[in-house]
């Protein structure tokens, strides 16, 4: 050990703020902070004085006013007498619906196309390349209006189903009607329904919970748990005796049996759509705007996902494939058991950022009249109340919240699958 002498005490001088690297970063930060706050103050000051001049101080009171407009696709009960806040909520739910549906379809399509692009079939691989290039290089907005136009122009109108010898007929044993107003599919109905619970009273955020749904979920959960117990028991027997008892029929019975009983008890039946008056009535109506947006976003995003999947698969070294085939695995098993699990680690992060893009692109719903949050809060509400600042800021915050939650999931996943390097 050597003895250390104290470094000579240096007197602090003002110039050290500039020249001494110990202090300089502090100086830069203070300047940056100062500049930033100056900019923010300037913007806020401008905004306030402009709003004062326009006579429109920031005020969110309009949210409790009646919206006075109707929304066609509403997941909760809503009438034109409800408030702007509730209209915005309907929009938010619609955004989430199309985003979730779109992500699922885009993933499925993207994986299929990505794998087919690597197919040994020359024609199919070329076709998929054309698909990918076609969708990636044309703006998504154009695709959305394009798909909408195709739906409107090529599908039959409900009036075509009318008459003695209609031009169009319902498909799947008269249960599904495909029209240019959307697709009508059967809806689940319960003749001995348990009713709904109304939550949050009369407020703008009120919602109903169907007791039938809860009952079904509870029964399903319980039977899955029971089936899992059976599997565990089978595992124990296998470990003890070496023989694995056949359990699939027991498990199927456990899952299906109680559900059947419950459904019969609730009087489950399907409500079929039927042509009444101007439109098909009954059944679930998947509107054209939803389908166009959903389809266009899925097709567009699928092209990107296909590229990600392809890159992910190609990133796995050929040795893995060869080793797997040396073990005698067939090609679809190689894909399922060897390649995909490894490729997923490469695929998932860009995949999630594509989900993010899809969600953000769903704001283009406005082009086909799908009432998402941009169409309600950022559209009609903004237009009718003239509260641009409040509406746009809130709209941005909503999207920001959605994006940040998706990013949080992504970060969590990245942590989870990170290669544990030693």
């Amino acid at each position, binding site marked *: 050990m050597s003895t250390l002498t104290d470094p000579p005490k240096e007197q602090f001088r003002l110039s050290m703020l*500039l*020249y001494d690297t110990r202090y*300089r*970063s502090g*100086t*830069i*930060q203070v*300047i*940056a*902070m100062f500049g*930033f706050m100056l900019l923010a103050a300037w*913007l806020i000051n*401008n*905004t306030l*004085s*402009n*709003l004062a*001049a*326009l006579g429109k101080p920031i005020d969110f009171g309009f949210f409790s006013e009646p919206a006075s407009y109707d929304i066609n696709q509403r997941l909760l009960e809503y009438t034109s007498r409800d408030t702007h806040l509730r209209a915005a909520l309907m929009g938010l739910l619609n955004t989430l619906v199309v985003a979730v549906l779109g992500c699922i379809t885009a993933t499925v399509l993207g994986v299929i196309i990505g794998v*087919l692009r690597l*197919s*040994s*079939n*020359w*024609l*199919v691989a070329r*076709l998929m390349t054309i698909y990918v*290039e*076609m969708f*990636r*290089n*044309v*703006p*998504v*907005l*154009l695709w959305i*209006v*394009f798909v909408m*136009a195709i739906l409107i*122009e090529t599908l039959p109108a409900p009036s075509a189903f009318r008459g003695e010898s209609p031009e169009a007929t319902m498909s799947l044993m008269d249960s599904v009607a495909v029209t240019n107003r959307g697709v009508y599919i059967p809806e689940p109905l319960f003749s001995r329904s348990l009713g709904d619970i109304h939550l949050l009273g009369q407020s703008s955020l009120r919602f109903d919970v169907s007791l039938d749904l809860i009952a079904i979920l509870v029964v399903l959960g319980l039977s899955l748990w029971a089936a899992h117990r059976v599997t565990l028991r089978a595992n124990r027997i296998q470990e003890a005796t070496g023989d694995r008892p056949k359990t699939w029929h027991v498990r199927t019975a456990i899952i299906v049996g109680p559900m059947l009983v419950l459904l019969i008890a609730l009087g489950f039946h399907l409500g079929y759509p039927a042509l009444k008056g101007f439109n098909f009535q009954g059944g679930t109506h998947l509107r054209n705007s939803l389908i166009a947006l959903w389809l266009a976003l899925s097709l567009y995003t699928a092209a990107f996902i296909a590229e990600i999947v392809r890159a992910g698969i190609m990133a796995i070294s050929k040795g893995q494939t060869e080793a797997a085939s040396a073990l005698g695995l067939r090609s679809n098993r190689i894909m399922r058991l060897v390649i995909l699990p490894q490729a997923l680690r490469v695929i998932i992060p860009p995949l999630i950022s594509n989900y993010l893009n899809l969600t*953000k*692109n769903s*704001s*283009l719903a*406005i*082009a086909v009249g799908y009432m998402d949050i*941009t169409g309600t809060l*950022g559209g009609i509400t*903004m237009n009718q109340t003239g509260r*641009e*600042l409040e509406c*746009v800021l809130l*709209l*941005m915050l909503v*999207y*920001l919240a959605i*994006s*940040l939650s998706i*990013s949080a999931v992504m970060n969590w996943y990245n942590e989870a699958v990170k290669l544990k390097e030693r």
Partner: protein
Amino acid sequence: MSGTHSHTVAFVRDTMLPEQDPPASEVGAVGWMRHNLFSNWFNSILTIASIAAIYFVLAAVIPWILSPTWEGTSLSNCRETLAAAGHGDAHGACWGVIKERWIQLIFGFYPSHLYWRPIAAFVLLGAALAPVLFSDKVPSQLLIFSALYPFIFPWLLWGGTIWMPIAALAGFVIGGLLFKVLSEKASTLIGVIVAVATAVIWWLFLAAPVAGIVDSILPIGIEAVESRKFGGFMLSVTIGVVAIACSLPIGIVLALGRQSDLLIVKYICVGFIEFIRGVPLITLLFVASTLLNIFMPPGTNFDIILRVLIMVTLFASAYMAEVIRGGLAALPKGQYEGADSLGLNYWQAQRLIIMPQALKISIPGIVSTFIGVFKDTTLVSIIGLLDPLGLSNAIRADANWNGIVWELYGFIALLFFVFCFSMSRYSMYLERKLQTGHR
């Protein structure tokens, strides 16, 4: 031949048989098809399904495209032509609308006698980009032109006095000179701060009056065109190019800020990037169309295209920052350490070692960001700008063309496709080229 030896050795062949042709099923068209199209039953099904799909699409589309309506003057006129030509059910495109409106779809409302200017601007853009994009094939002296081009481009498009771009350029010269003098006399930091502050003051308060004064003494200029006249495809390209060009320096600053050790700077940059990337472009365009004037000092007013340019630039810079951050992260740590060991300070290291390499790796990412922004420019139609998609609505509001759908969408899609596809091919070529350089 073998026959002459047959009596001595009965079963050894000492000469080669002539090569036989491979079986007919393995070569030529048939063999190729067996290998590539019908290698097993699953592939055969796929092939047949694909052929059927191609047939149906082409059978529907080709007769529609081959429609003798290039001379049509209105939709009803087209329908008559089609009926006369025996196209059943009026099934056929009405190309008259494209013939009449394609110039509008490309140039918008730009004065027709000045079309040479946007054309020249975009041709010169290619020349200015050449030294960057094809560095091995073009003399590097062109780089001077590239540096001047950001001032030539707006001048060509918007016109007006030549002194305005020169005054803007002067800001850099003043800033640069100040930096040089001060960084020698005093510290680099003071130099940077004073130079930037002076340049900003010059641009904000002095450049325009000075340019005005010089112009009144020596008026040199070309006809000014207001940005309102911009429209169609030209508007999309202009927004895309300006946004990317402006976002590049901002993106570099943001990327450096995000990587820096300075906590406050870092959080400001991260906040900005994540905010912009978290909201859809359309909300930023709403800001441009409804709010930006409210954020500016009372009485400020600049036209919607400039406001859109500002917002799209901010949007692009956040994405650009991430691309460049990726480039920075891809550089081996040795490069940073090497720069440090040479005794270079932060800015020298960035300028001489880090940035040239990081930017080079980032070029494919920058190109794909550009494609993305370029495609997203179609969103401006939602706030009422007449880009190709917005114009298609305006055209359909013309009584003659009311009811036209596919022709316009198809034409616009084709324009975008050609542009984006060639860009993405270029980017792939570049990626390959860069890859070999780094391995």
